[in-house]
């Protein structure tokens, strides 16, 4: 263990590497800082003009407010003109501010391009030469990695010689880290050369994207360890219970970044934790990579997802019970109300007639309520599944971050426009203050808040709804429910059956009416 620590000390961490290359190779230090500086300044310009705009807007609001105090129509008209005038001045100030800040941004991007060109002209030859060197170091590291990846091991042997396995694991990790750095150097150099060439052609950016660690990890898995094979299938097969493990799988399972990246690309990123819980994955296999922080993270996410599922299930059950009891209860109350109405208000003495009317009314009331509740129930189910989806998106994003995902640097041309027409368009849009809509969501979206359907709150809400319904229950309500039930049935039933049902109900009502009147 002591030696392991020593090795880790002498080695640059991934964070060091990323900072080093990002700051010095890719982002060009001072120039980049300066670029960010003037973008901030553009904000200052916007803010300054914003203040001016606010002052004028404040004035126009003040004049408008004073209009109510004066009864003289002509004076009010004059005030309205002044208010409109100051408001327009404010808006113009805002537009001019945005335009000014855009022009400044373009000016400064061009100033900086001159510096970048000087740097590119001096560096480009050396970059080309050093690109060959960086490639040489990558090839060297790749040889060790592919050799280690091609070997096979017996799981029992690895588990029984834990100490030896730890040394081996450490050796493999060292090889992997060295390769990761070498590969990142290659990507960064390619990007940097492309950028320098673009600057020399008077362009602010090249067509290449700034490399991030996720690109490196992706290429390690796809191109180096599994060399074009369907790695998802290979790993899935391994989990089915083989006693043999290849070096390439061992690399993925033992490295936090690779395992996180692998999980983030899976349909279900918690597949391993789920497999262990449901005994699709042998715990013996798990012993090989149980120390990997990505697995711990996966287990934590899995536990929370289980809680979400259980809460959802509880809410569903409680809601379902409430639908049935609530509908029955409401039906009984409406039944009783109608009975009183027939007896006391209509003064009908014929019990059979009353009971027949009540039976139909109660049936319709029950149906109506049931339909309404079912609608709410569906909404609840959608909410529960949306909640789960949001959570899944959240942990997928977290895995991607651990797997090296980061926001790439915004290209200068995205800020100032690429072509002449682009720039004119941007200038005009800035004059009218039409902001660009930045879609950073990409395919990873961060979950802002987790939302639970707490069974307690669901119960309380339903009780409240019932209380409101029960206290307001009357004939009008029952009538509404009948309409609701018919509307619902029309939606759900086939046309033919719906018309038959309607015909039967109308027939029954007519029959009862005639019976009550003594015609039949």
């Amino acid at each position: 263990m002591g030696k392991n620590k020593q090795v880790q000390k002498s080695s640059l961490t991934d964070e060091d590497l990323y900072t080093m290359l990002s700051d010095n190779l890719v982002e060009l230090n001072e120039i980049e800082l300066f670029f960010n500086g003037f973008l901030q300044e553009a904000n200052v310009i916007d803010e300054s003009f914003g203040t001016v705009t606010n002052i004028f807007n404040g004035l126009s609001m003040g004049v408008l407010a004073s209009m109510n105090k004066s009864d003289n129509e002509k004076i009010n008209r004059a005030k309205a003109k002044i208010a409109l005038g100051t408001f327009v001045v404010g808006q113009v100030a805002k537009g001019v501010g945005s335009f000014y800040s855009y022009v400044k941004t373009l000016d400064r991007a061009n100033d900086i391009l001159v510096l970048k060109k000087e740097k590119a002209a001096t560096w480009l030859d050396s970059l080309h030469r050093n690109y060959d060197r960086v490639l040489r170091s990558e090839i060297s590291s790749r040889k060790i990695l592919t050799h280690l990846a091609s070997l096979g091991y017996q799981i029992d042997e690895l588990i029984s010689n834990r100490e030896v396995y730890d040394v081996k694991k450490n050796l493999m990790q060292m090889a992997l880290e060295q390769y990761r750095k070498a590969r990142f150097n290659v990507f960064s150099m390619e990007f940097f050369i492309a950028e320098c060439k673009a600057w020399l052609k008077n362009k602010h950016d090249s067509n290449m994207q700034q490399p991030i660690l996720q690109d490196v990890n992706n290429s390690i898995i796809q191109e180096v360890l599994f060399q074009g094979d369907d790695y998802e299938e290979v790993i899935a097969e391994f989990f089915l219970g083989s006693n043999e493990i290849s070096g390439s799988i061992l690399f993925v399972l033992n490295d936090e970044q690779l395992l996180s990246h692998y999980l983030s690309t899976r349909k279900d990123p918690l597949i391993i934790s789920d497999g262990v819980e449901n005994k699709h994955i042998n715990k013996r296999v798990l012993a090989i990579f149980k120390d990997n922080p990505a697995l711990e993270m996966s287990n934590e996410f899995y536990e929370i997802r289980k809680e979400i599922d259980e809460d959802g299930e509880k809410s569903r059950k409680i809601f379902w019970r409430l639908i049935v009891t609530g509908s029955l209860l409401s039906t009984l109350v409406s039944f009783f109300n109608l009975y009183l109405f027939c007896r006391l208000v209509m003064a009908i003495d014929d019990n059979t007639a009353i009971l027949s009317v009540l039976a139909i009314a109660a049936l319709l009331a029950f149906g109506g309520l049931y339909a309404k509740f079912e609608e709410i129930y569906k909404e609840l189910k959608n909410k529960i599944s949306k909640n789960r989806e949001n959570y899944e998106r959240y942990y997928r994003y977290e895995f991607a971050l651990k797997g090296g995902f980061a926001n790439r640097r915004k290209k200068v041309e995205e800020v100032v426009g690429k072509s002449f027409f682009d720039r004119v368009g941007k200038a005009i849009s800035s004059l009218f203050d039409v902001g660009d809509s930045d879609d950073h969501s990409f395919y990873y979206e961060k979950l802002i808040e987790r939302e639970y359907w707490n069974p307690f709150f669901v119960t309380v809400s339903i009780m409240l709804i019932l209380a409101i319904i029960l206290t307001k229950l009357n004939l009008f309500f029952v009538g509404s429910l009948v309409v609701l039930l018919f509307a619902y049935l029309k939606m759900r039933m086939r046309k033919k059956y719906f018309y038959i049902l309607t015909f039967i109900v109308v027939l029954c009502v007519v029959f009862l009416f005639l019976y009550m009147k003594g015609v039949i």
Partner: protein
Amino acid sequence: MNQEEIIAVQQYENALSRVDQSVDKITVLMSSAQSLAQQGTQIMNCFAQLKREQQAYEAQFKELKLKLQSDLIKFQNIVKGAEARLDRHLDYIDKWTNLLLTRDLGTMDSQELQYQRNIMDAIQMANDNFNKELDKLYSL
């Protein structure tokens, strides 16, 4: 009063009312102008801030340009030596890598693994030196 006098009085009253309205309008304008003048200092401050920003930018840009020129001269002076050192580190990396690849990397023998670790340490050191040299060269 005869008809002419009545018309004259009406005209006079109309004129008075127009004067009143004009006075009211002027009062409104004056009050708006007054509050605008009160806010004027704030507006002036905004523009003064913009001017300061512009001056600061120009000074910073000048400084950056000078630093860049001096860095580029330094770069030209050290590039040959740095590249020679990079080649030396690469030679080490190749040498140790080739040695490692002659060993049985699938072994579970602890002594052999320890030996391989020593070689790996050497490779790592050479790699670190290579990366640092590269970093030093382009961080100017």
